[in-house]
């Protein structure tokens, strides 16, 4: 994922669904990516499981939703190493975030929702 300016579209590199990413404190798996239809466009949301089990100060785990952004162009291309990417706009407007949260709340099991 690239891009720093919230108002500008950015390149979102799609995750390998089902592959595990490890870090010093735990690991996570992106289970699936979904499109959520809203009045202000289709939001791309990644759902996954995270486990913190090798941390020095606690442990935990959850199923999470990561709202990548509103789709500007789906499957816009592939990276040099062959990974597909899309062009998205981050969701910064709080009313839009609330709307997406409400949709996810009644459609997917989760413990937390994060906005990129």
């Amino acid at each position, binding site marked *: 994922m690239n891009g720093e300016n919230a108002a500008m579209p950015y390149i979102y590199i799609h995750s390998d669904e089902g592959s595990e990413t490890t870090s010093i404190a735990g690991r996570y798996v992106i289970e699936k990516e979904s499109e959520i239809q809203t009045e202000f466009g289709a939001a791309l949301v990644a759902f996954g499981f995270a486990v913190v*089990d090798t941390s020095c100060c606690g442990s*935990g*785990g959850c*199923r999470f939703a990561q709202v990548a952004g509103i789709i500007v162009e789906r499957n816009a291309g592939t990276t040099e190493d062959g990974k597909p990417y899309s062009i998205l706009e981050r969701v910064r407007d709080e009313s839009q975030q609330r709307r997406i949260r409400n949709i996810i*709340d009644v459609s997917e*099991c989760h*413990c937390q929702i994060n906005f990129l």
Partner: protein
Amino acid sequence: MIGITSYGAYIPWNRLQRQSIFQAMGWYSPFTYGIAKGEKAVSNHDEDSLSMAVNAGANCVSGLDRGKIGGLFLASTTLPYDERMNASIAATALDLKSQVSAADITGGLKAGTTAMISALDALQAGRMNQALVLAADSRLGKPGGAYEHMFGDAAAAVLFGTENVIAEFKGSFSLSYDFADQRRASGEKFNRNWEERWIRDAGISKILPEAIMGAATKHGVNPANISKICIALPADMSGMGKKMMLTPEKFQESMVNTVGDCGAALSVLMLAAALEDAKPGDQIVVVGFGSGADVLLFQATEEITKLPARRAVKACLANRKELTSYEKYKVFSGIEDIETGIRGEAPAASALSVLWKDRRAIMAYVGTRCKECKTPQFPPQRICANPACNAKDKMEPYSFADKKGKLFTFTADMLAFTFDPPAIYGLVDMDGGGRLWMDFTDVEVKDMKVNMPVELSFRRKYVDKGRGISGYSWKAVPAGKEAN
């Protein structure tokens, strides 16, 4: 018929030999050698009167319909909050309905018997059909004093009702005197007392007979017919028997050498112990002493033989671990402050707004179970976590606090702050489904075994000193026996 329908107890796992107190402090107070006998029950670092009371209550109402309980009376002189109803916290932790009348009964050692009389009054007035009484205390004696030896920590609970009564309430008698044998001013940590001889001669030997004979006269009880008398004082009271035509075996043992003087809880704890051995027809007298006296009269019914085994005094006494370190006792009880390091000093993330919103999950460990696929899940969900189901808004409340489970895996963490390192936490597979991340307590690492049976215990999870908040929830402990 109004009376007792169930009972329970809770005694902390840790027991401190009084000789270890004497070994540490005898240089200063050699006179305590005479009382340095037996052991006393002491709270773990994550226990207080409120947490113990909830566990006693959970043992009392185990297997019963909590939805019928209309009142909760919590007796103690050592509750964590002066303002914020501790009984309401207990009611939330026990997942009682919100239409419950909850009250703290405090201020004196006869609070336990006063709470029972208040509950019975409410039943007699028809205000409720069931009332739960919880009593707990965790008092501190100053190092070097006799109270440090005598005081112990414990809790007990009695459920009163109108159906399936195991001991019928026959009446009560109360005396109120400003007899200041013991006192603790607001904000003080330790108890003070007046001269022991004066307490014995002017107080106990006069007020107790007046109360007991007053109750016998008022309710037409022949003292010779009493089967068990529970006098809530940390001493062998059988010497009083001759005056009242009571033989020594009729005096319920006060557990002074196994539990210690557990204050407002002692009367209820002794009643629970008497009920464990009671037979139909037995007359049981309970006497609370402190700022006067209360006397309650009960008679066991045939129903007492039908009450399923429950965790009360015998099982709690059997579940023990010797706390060999006097210094540990001082740290666990808060007598001594220790260097907690940066991790221990980190501000606790208290959010009372979140606690209010998620109170059933945090305080009562109530999650959800999918009505479609019956998968239990925690924290509560709207969408079923079972990938093969994913049913939407088909959930029903599901309590984990009253379930047992098996240890799936665990770790022991020497870096995370705890008053009793290492911090032990892991995954528990609950009977009936659900896998929970749990903190563990009342266990040593060497005794942690994969697949060991575990259960949940209500504990103080943290103290947020900056905001004056004690945070509570449930931890996992090795499963104990229901009854001995």
